[in-house]
């Protein structure tokens, strides 16, 4: 029995107008900086043009472009990741002696002002938070955003980025600690 299959086609002329915003949004939640996101989208279009002959028409044009973009993002992440060792350790705590596992004195959290709750929907607060997220080291920012903003499963992130679950949680902890401190300096105790 012949399979009735509708094959998708590519129209690269329309890529920029049809997909650049979508691909940008997809990227910006995974990398921490708008310039890098734009570069990755551009690279994706160029790579797509190069490999048009490999397109089999089974997936939609958008899905196909996203699959190229994913590779680009992972390559970008690997580049950042390779400069530092992959194993992450938690740094906010004593790691030997009788204080093992306790807070390091200089890292202890400070009190936040009590009326913090009132401002949670405040527009300026959002801007401050956004700046603080942008200021995270790129690698932390990426994992943190995927987990927190995009809501990916732990397993999925680990697979995509080739890290262990415990590494992921250390990165999340660092990102959160830094974010907390950044908000403390720029918002709560300003």
């Amino acid at each position, binding site marked *: 029995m012949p399979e009735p299959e509708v094959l998708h086609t590519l129209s*690269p002329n329309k890529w920029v107008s049809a997909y650049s915003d979508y691909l940008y*949004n997809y990227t910006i939640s995974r990398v921490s900086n708008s310039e890098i996101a734009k570069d990755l989208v551009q690279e994706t279009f160029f790579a797509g043009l190069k490999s048009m002959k490999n397109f089999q028409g089974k997936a939609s044009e958008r899905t196909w472009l996203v699959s190229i973009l994913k590779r680009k993002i992972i390559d970008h992440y690997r580049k950042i990741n390779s400069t530092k060792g992959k194993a992450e350790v938690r740094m906010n705590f004593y790691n030997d002696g009788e204080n093992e596992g306790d807070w390091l004195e200089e890292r202890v959290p400070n009190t*936040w002002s009590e009326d913090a709750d009132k401002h949670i929907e405040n527009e300026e607060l959002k801007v401050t938070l956004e700046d603080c997220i942008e200021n995270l080291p790129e690698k932390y920012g990426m994992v943190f955003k995927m987990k927190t*903003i995009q809501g990916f499963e732990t397993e999925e992130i680990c697979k995509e980025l080739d890290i262990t679950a415990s590494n992921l949680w250390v990165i999340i902890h660092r990102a959160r600690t830094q974010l907390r401190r950044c908000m403390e300096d720029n918002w709560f105790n300003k």
Partner: protein
Amino acid sequence: MKSKVFISCDEATAICDKNQYGESSVLEKIKLNMHFIKCKFCKMYTKHNTYLTRMLGIYSKNAHCGKENCFTDKEKSELQNEVEKKIAL
């Protein structure tokens, strides 16, 4: 597997982080709450962390192509030109 009742601050904050994503077990939550009895710092850390999660929840609803950070019309037309050049090759 050894299971101790009192955990360190290091472990407590790790549980707290997981809990922000609903990924800590009931036993872990009990241990965390018991830890609060003797540690005000972790209690504060947890309070801040929960607050941060709420802020981020509100933020992520709005985290889309804003006016400043997306491709501008100019950038789009430049990109379009680049793409067309490459198609013509």
